[in-house]
């Protein structure tokens, strides 16, 4: 069994603490994605799991073993690095087989495993090239092949796709997903790209400044963000967050406009509470151009400052509660700048966060 358990894990560099006692349990064969803005401690956390960074405090278990003091080679994990970290002086074949050779496996077994990995990743044609003779995507695949030949207890990925161009990134993303369904193993995957996180993860861990903000399935994190940070970080374009105040059953926005308190949140707020009203662009659509505008709905007349046609939808830049806000128009028609439209806001999908703590009022 290869579950990974982090208990109160702390990392300090000198006197600076960069990871502040995080707790996380990763189940056997689970695909967990650590996501967060740059510098939030994702790589550090991953490298502590790998054993490349020492743990300043707390405990890390892999399987049943406490691995705090085990060197990386004794942890039976594989890691894929952001810039691939291939061995420049070895051919693709040697790169793939290196870990097994070090583990003193038989020639026949190495051959078999390397062949198998090359097959899965489509590297068979490239076996005798050196890394310098490969494209970025091919190097990426070799790095992944090197990880899978060893049949480790867990894979660790540190932003493996960030050096690839957009198209290749999407392609490799699906390959990683497929790979995981083929080679069932525990995966910890670091990225700052929330789309990657949403598409790949069984569970997402959202990090910020060395703390874990929320852990949940992509659905949970997307639909029920626990605070304004997660709300704005997950989802693209990001959720509109408008300062407001609850007054006699209404959410009064700063510019005087108001919408009813969403029914499902009615007993979570009190009168006079300062809140932040959150609504995703998809849930703020002109009449006749929405997909989510059934259920409890509020209607507001808003002026469109700018419309951006994306194809199947148009982004509408407008003002809500004195702030820039973004709406969407599905099945779009031409919209002129300055045009006023009746927007329907799906309150069933709206969020309310406490203005002082930033936490969702649901909690």
């Amino acid at each position, binding site marked *: 069994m290869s579950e990974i358990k982090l208990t109160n894990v702390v990392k300090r560099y000198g006197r600076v603490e960069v990871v502040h006692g995080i707790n996380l349990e990763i189940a056997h064969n689970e695909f967990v994605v650590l996501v967060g803005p740059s510098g939030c401690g994702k790589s550090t956390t991953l490298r502590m799991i790998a054993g*490349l960074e020492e743990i300043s405090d707390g405990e890390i278990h892999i399987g049943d073993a406490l691995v705090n003091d085990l*060197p990386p080679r004794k942890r039976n994990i594989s890691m894929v690095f952001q810039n691939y970290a291939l*061995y*420049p*002086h070895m051919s693709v074949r040697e790169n793939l087989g*290196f870990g097994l050779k070090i583990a003193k496996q038989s020639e026949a077994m190495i051959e078999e495993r390397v062949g198998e990995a090359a097959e899965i990743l489509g590297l068979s044609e490239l076996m005798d090239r050196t890394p310098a003779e490969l494209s970025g995507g091919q190097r990426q695949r070799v790095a992944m092949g090197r990880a899978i030949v060893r049949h480790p207890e867990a894979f660790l990925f540190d932003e493996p796709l960030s050096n690839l161009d957009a198209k290749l990134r999407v392609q490799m993303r699906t390959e990683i997903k497929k790979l995981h369904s083929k080679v069932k193993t525990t995966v910890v995957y670091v990225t700052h790209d929330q789309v990657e996180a949403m598409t790949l993860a069984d569970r997402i861990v959202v990090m910020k400044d060395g703390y874990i903000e929320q852990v949940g399935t992509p659905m949970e994190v997307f639909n029920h963000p626990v605070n304004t940070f997660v709300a704005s970080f997950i989802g693209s374009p990001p959720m509109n967050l408008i300062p407001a105040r609850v007054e006699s059953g209404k959410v009064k926005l700063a510019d005087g406009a108001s919408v009813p308190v969403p029914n499902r949140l009615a007993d979570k707020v009190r009168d006079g509470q300062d809140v932040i009203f959150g609504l995703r662009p998809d849930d703020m659509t002109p009449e006749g151009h929405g997909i989510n505008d059934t259920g409890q709905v509020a209607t507001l007349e808003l002026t469109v400052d700018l419309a951006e046609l994306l194809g199947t939808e148009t982004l509408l830049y407008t003002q809500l509660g004195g702030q820039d806000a973004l709406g969407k128009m599905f099945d779009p028609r031409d919209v002129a700048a300055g045009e006023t439209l009746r927007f329907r806001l799906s309150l069933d999908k709206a969020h309310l966060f406490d203005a002082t703590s930033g936490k969702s009022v649901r909690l």
Partner: protein
Amino acid sequence: MARTKSPYKTRLALTPYLLLSPAFLVLIFVVALPLVFSLYTSFTGYRLVRPDTLWNWVGTRNYERIFADLDFWIAFGRTILFLAIALNLEFILGLGIALLINRITWGQRTLRTIMMFPMMFSPILVGYQFKFIFNDNIGVLNNALQSLGISDAATPWLVDRYLALGSIIFAEVWMSTSVFAILLLAGLFAMPRDPIEAARVDGCSPWQVFRHITLPFLMPFAFIAMTIRSLDVARAYDIVDVMTGGGPAGRTELLWTLIARVGYDNARMGQANAMAYVSIILSIAFTYYFFTKLVAARRYMGGAA
């Protein structure tokens, strides 16, 4: 009327040759002529004390003679041995020093500078210094050994046939290990961290990381150092001449001390030049060897080195 080139165009065409001519003249007089001249003399019975022998063409007799001369071949073999021992020692020591300096975080620059001190002395001075250290009567080494009670014999460092060559190698290594250390340190600084971490995760112990990742990366740097040093050592003369003068009884005779003796002491310039040409071929062979290794290692490293 048939038009000839305008004077201006003619001048324009000649300009490059005109501008290059000083360089060519210098090269011809400083390099090419002496080279041709010495090559010519190696086919004559030229003796320094009798200039007329310069016209005494003897064909390949000088070469035949040295090829049949056991002393020459012993010096030849000893030079290769000297070179092999010195270069390997310097490589190992230099690697050790570079690895140690790479580990420390404080005072690295200062140490790097200090490390270069031995290279700043003239080999002649280094030779004298070690001659004094190794002297069997008044030498520092024997005195130290005796005071510490390790040995009370007056060890003849520069007289014993094996010890003498060892002492010279020691001086050579002391002076030039930093060539390796500096180049290898530069290699370590340029070394990417990622493959090392990947290897650690891939199951390597620290020794295996060094053996399979660090060392292959450093080899091109080592080959550069070896190329430089093989040229240097193959023409070793000054240190040997000062410390033992090729003695005792020719036991530390290297190619160039032999050549100098034949050419200047015995005044047989023709024969000395023949030897010199053979030894130059030896140098070229070493350079070529290390250079092919270097190129191979670099190609091996792909874009990384």
